[in-house]
C-alpha cells in the first residue's frame, strides 16, 4: 500500500460505489425521501393552517369582545338616558301637581271669600229690614196710642221721652 495508491481511485470501488449509490439513491428517493418530504410539507401546511385558524378565531373573539363592549356601553347609555327621562318626568309631574293644587286652593279661597261677602251682605240687608220693620211696628203702636186719647198720648210721649233720656244716660 503506497502513498500514491491513496490518490489513485481503484476501479473496483468506483464500480461498486456508482452502482450501489445510484441504486440506493433511486430507492431512497422513491421510498424514503418522497414520503418524508411530503409528510413534512403536509405537516407544515396543517400547522400553518391551524395557526391561521387560531389567529382568525382570536381576531373574531376580539371583534366579538369589542362588540360586546359596545353593546354594554350602549345599554349603559340607554339606562342613563331612561333614568334621566324618568327623573325629568317625575320633576315635571311634581311641579305640575303643585301648580294645580295651588291654583285649586286659590280658587277655593276666592270662592269662600265671595261667599263670605255675599252672606255678610245678606245679613246686613236682613238686619236693615228687621230694623225697619221694628221701627214701623214702634211707629204703628205709637200712632195707635196717640189716635185714642190726647192725655195718654201726652203721657206716652212723656214716658218715651223719659225712657229715651234714661237710655242716653
Amino acid at each position, binding site marked *: 500500500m503506497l502513498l500514491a*495508491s491513496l490518490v489513485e481511485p*481503484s*476501479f*473496483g470501488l468506483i464500480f461498486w460505489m456508482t452502482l450501489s*449509490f445510484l441504486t*440506493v439513491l433511486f430507492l431512497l*428517493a422513491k421510498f*424514503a425521501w418522497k414520503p418524508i418530504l411530503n*409528510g413534512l410539507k403536509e405537516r407544515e401546511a396543517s400547522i400553518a393552517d391551524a395557526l391561521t385558524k387560531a389567529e382568525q378565531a382570536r381576531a373574531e373573539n376580539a371583534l366579538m369582545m369589542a362588540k360586546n363592549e359596545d353593546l354594554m356601553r350602549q345599554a349603559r347609555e340607554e339606562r342613563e338616558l331612561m333614568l334621566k327621562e324618568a327623573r325629568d318626568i317625575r320633576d315635571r309631574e311634581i311641579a305640575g301637581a303643585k301648580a294645580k293644587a295651588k291654583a285649586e286652593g286659590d280658587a277655593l279661597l276666592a270662592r269662600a271669600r265671595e261667599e263670605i261677602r255675599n252672606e255678610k251682605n245678606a245679613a246686613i240687608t236682613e238686619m236693615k229690614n228687621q230694623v225697619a220693620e221694628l221701627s214701623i211696628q214702634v211707629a204703628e203702636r205709637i200712632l195707635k196710642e196717640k189716635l185714642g186719647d190726647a192725655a195718654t198720648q201726652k203721657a206716652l210721649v212723656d214716658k218715651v221721652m223719659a225712657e229715651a233720656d234714661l237710655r242716653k244716660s
Partner: protein
Amino acid sequence: MSIPNLLRTASLLIGSLLFGAANAQHEGHDHATHEHTDQVENGVVKVVAADTEAPELAKEEAEHGGKFDAGKLIMGHIGDEHGWHLWGHTTLPLPIIIYNTERGVSCFSSSHFDHGHKTYGGYMLHEGDIVATKAEDGTDIHHATIDEPLTKATWDISITKNVLSLFISLAILLFVFISVAKAYTRRAGQAPTGFQNLVEPIILFVRDDVAKSAIGPKYMTFMPYLLTAFFFIFLNNLLGLVPFFPGGANLTGNIAVTLVLALITFIIVTVKGNKHYWHHILAMPGVPGWVLFILTPVEILGMFLKPFVLMIRLFANITAGHIIALSFFSLIFVFGETNAGAGYGVSVMSLAFTVFMTMLELLVAFIQAYVFTFLSAMYIGSAVEEPHHH
C-alpha cells in the same frame, strides 16, 4: 490490518496501564524479532526500533514478522484491503471478483490468498493489489512472478473492505430512512416520534439551509440527491471513526468514493444547466469581446474544477483527520520501542491528543457532509438559476 492493529494497540495500552507491573516478565522477548528483516515497503515511513524492550507490542509484532511501523499502520487504516481484520488473527474473508479479458470471471474467497502469502486461481496480492501470475495455486508469493500483460487485462471488482463498508452503510441508510418514511405515512400530520426526532432536524436543515437557500424555488427536484449525499457522507464519516467492525473503513476518505459523488454533482449541474448558466460560461454578458478569450477558458476550466475540488476536499479532510489521530496514537509505540517508560509517558499526551482529534473529527464529520452538500447545492443553484431582471 488497521483494525487489528488499532484494537491491539488500544487493548495493549489499556492493559499495560492496568497491569504495568507484569511487563517486566516480557523483557527480552523482542530481541528475536529484529533478525527478521523488514518487508520492503516503498515510500512508507520506517520506524527503526532501537534494541531495547518494547514489551507486548514487540511480541505481537514478532508474530507478524516486523517491528512497529507507524506508516504501515496508518496507511493500512486509511487504505483498502481484501479481507477485513476483525481482531487478533481473525479476518473476515471477503469475496474476490475478478474479470480478466482473457481468463474471464473468477470468484473466490480472499481467504485462499492466506493473508496475501499465497497465490490462488492464477492471481495473488502484491502490495494490496491483485495481480495475475502463472504460478500454481498455493505457491508462496515470493516464488511467483507477476504476469504483466495478464495483470493489465485484469479488472478487480472484489468486495473489498471499503466495498463491504459501502454496502453496510447503504443498507443502514435504506433501513433507517425507509422505516422513518413509514412513520411519516403512518402518523401523517402528527408530531414526530423516536427516530424521526433524530433525523427530522437534519432533513429540515438540508432542506431549508442547504437546498432552499442555495438553489431557490426549484430545490425540490434535487432534494433526494442532496439528502442521500449528506446522510451517506455523514454516516460514513462517523463509521470511519468507529475503530472496530462494522466501522473503521475510511470510505469517505477514499478518493474513488468522493470521485463518484463529485461526478454525480458534476453530471447534475451539466445536465440541468439552463441557457442562463451556459451563457455565463461561454460568453459572460457585459464583458468586452477580447476579455472573453481569457474568461471563457477560465469558466470552462471552472466547470471541471468545482467538482474536482469537491472530490479533493472531502477526501483530504477525512484522510488527514485519520492520519493525524493515528499519528498521535503511533507516537506511543514509536517511543515505546525505544524505551517502555517513554512509551507510557508519551501515551498520556498521545491519548489526550487522540481523544481531542476524535472529538474534532466528530465535528468535521458533520461539517464536511454539510460542506459537500452545500457546495453541490450551490453549483446546482448556479446552473438552474433564472436570469435576474433588474
